[in-house]
């Protein structure tokens, strides 16, 4: 019995640029709405940095200064870093672990969805939530903490700070992908907390860096949140005056390592059986 077979070469799907853009846009839009409507996500990711900032930066210490920088301004940089880290980690890792472990990612992979769109959407949404957190901190600082953004110079600094923090969402999104590929759907949130809370403390995001014990300060040099917060503090004039390039290099290297780990997880997943 002969079977007529069609000669099909292995190609990318040819789509018009408009169509591809539409796919990426919708993937990101629905990922955003999905997370926004998840009370657990929105509440924890947005409220923790804001709560801490209000408590430690506005209610207490608001007239103090650290290394010459007013506390409300200083804490925008550190709690901004903390918030960006949380938003990126929870935005990517928890969703990925759940989608993988419970079969939803397979449904999407079986569809014509371009695989990259899935990851791009998660990263974009993490950056969006990061921006929201930073802007919220700005608003609170300006409204209640006497943070000044009155002239062009200060506005430029504010934009630069926002840019740095939102860009800082990328290394943590990469980390989230790496974690998400190696945790189960139920253990992902706990694993994330186990990693990022100690990391934040040791990086000087809660207790300012110069007040940390010496040992901890050494550990911090290896931690990405330390480097991001130093870049942010540099903008407000409170950094430790190390070169910015060094910080960016560490963050870049960290991002590459995490993406490498994520890629290993991605390929390992091709073989695994899902429940």
């Amino acid at each position, binding site marked *: 019995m002969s079977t007529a*077979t069609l000669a099909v070469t292995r190609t990318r799907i040819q*789509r018009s640029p408009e169509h591809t853009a539409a796919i990426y846009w*919708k993937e990101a839009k629905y990922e955003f709405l999905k997370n926004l409507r998840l009370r657990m996500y929105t509440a924890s990711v947005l409220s923790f940095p804001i709560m801490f900032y209000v408590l430690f930066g506005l209610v207490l210490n608001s007239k103090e200064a650290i290394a010459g920088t007013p506390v409300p301004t200083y804490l925008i940089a550190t709690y901004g870093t903390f918030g960006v880290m949380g938003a990126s980690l929870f935005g990517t890792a928890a969703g990925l672990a759940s989608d993988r472990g419970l*079969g939803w990612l397979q449904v999407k992979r079986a*569809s014509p969805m371009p695989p990259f769109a899935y990851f791009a959407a998660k990263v974009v949404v993490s950056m969006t939530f990061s921006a929201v957190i930073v802007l919220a901190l700005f608003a609170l600082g300006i409204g209640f903490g006497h943070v000044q953004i009155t002239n062009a110079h200060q506005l430029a600094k504010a934009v630069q700070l926002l840019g740095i923090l939102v860009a800082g969402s990328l290394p943590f999104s990469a980390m989230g992908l790496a974690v998400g590929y190696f945790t189960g759907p139920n253990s992902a949130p706990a694993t994330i907390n186990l990693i990022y809370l100690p990391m934040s403390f040791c990086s000087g995001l809660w207790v300012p860096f110069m007040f940390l014990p010496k040992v901890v300060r050494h550990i911090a040099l290896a931690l990405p949140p330390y480097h991001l917060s130093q870049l942010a503090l540099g903008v407000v004039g409170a950094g430790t005056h190390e070169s910015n390039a060094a910080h960016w290099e560490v963050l870049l290297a960290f991002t590459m390592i995490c993406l490498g780990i994520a890629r290993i997880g991605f390929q390992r997943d091709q*073989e695994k059986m899902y429940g």
Partner: protein
Amino acid sequence: MALVPHPPIRDDAITGREASSLPPIDPMTSEGRMSIAPIAAATEQFRLTPGSRADLVVASLEGVNKNYGEVRALHGVNFGVRAGEVVALLGPNGAGKTTAVKLLLGLMPPNAGRVRVFGGDPVNPENRLRTGAMLQVGRVPETLRVREHIDLFSTYYQRHMPATEVMAAAGLEKLSDRKFGDLSGGQKQRVLFALAICGDPDLLFLDEPTVGLDVEARRLLWEEIRRMVQRGKTVLLTTHYLQEADALADRIAVINKGEIIAVGTPAEIKAKTSGKRIRCITRLGLAELREIPGVSAAKQDREAVEIHAPEAEPVLRELLARDLSLSGLEVTSAGLEEAFLALTQDNSGNARQLN
């Protein structure tokens, strides 16, 4: 509500005593389109079904092995689906049905053999434009609305059915704005079905589409599947519900422990046993019943006993003679369940041909 696979409903609850309430046989389905081609040579597993284009195999597994570590999920599987037909892959849980579907969808590669979809590698992204898949999913994003899920999936395809048509085909018209997490189990399955059909694909994969649904929801989904078939789609569905395979498929491939053990039309598979099932309340014990000539099996079913026999009449004569107080007598045709048990309990374990 999570869509975890539900333990199979006991088949005697459906095929046994409710046989009389089954829907009438639709001439468009298996019974009406019984294969009349002669049985081919022993190694030939693909056979012609009138109404399908025999020259176009749209999906096939050729000599496929698939292992998960030490576990042999599929072994030596040869199996093909032709354009326009509905094939059911029928087997118990763990038989390898879902693995076969995942291989055909290109979600993982085989350890040996070849998988072909539309003549090419299933991983080819162009193939995915022409296929739709309904898989068993533990959790679907619950905070998105039904129309948002459908909108997103529709966008992946080059051409897709309008959202209203998709929702009508899946029976979701009134649920368009409902969040996925607020739906009932049957409604959730219909959304997954909608995602499979929204791209107007030529080839549909349905992995246990009605698992965990009540009888009514199952009937509704069957109707929706039949409507897709009437539009000319090719369908591969997997199931462990024998009645489902019988109701929907042109051909059934029975699979157990990773091997295809029989392929044929539902009528051919049912013809494996043409026995009867006798149910009654009797004071006779099981041991005594099993000794009655003509009885192939007897088991207790709560207050009654269930006796299987190739022919009912000799056994009935014995029963009625021995136990004058016998009551609650029902005699029904042995359904696909017996055929299935006979096939899967075969000790040879090799791929068997029907003859």
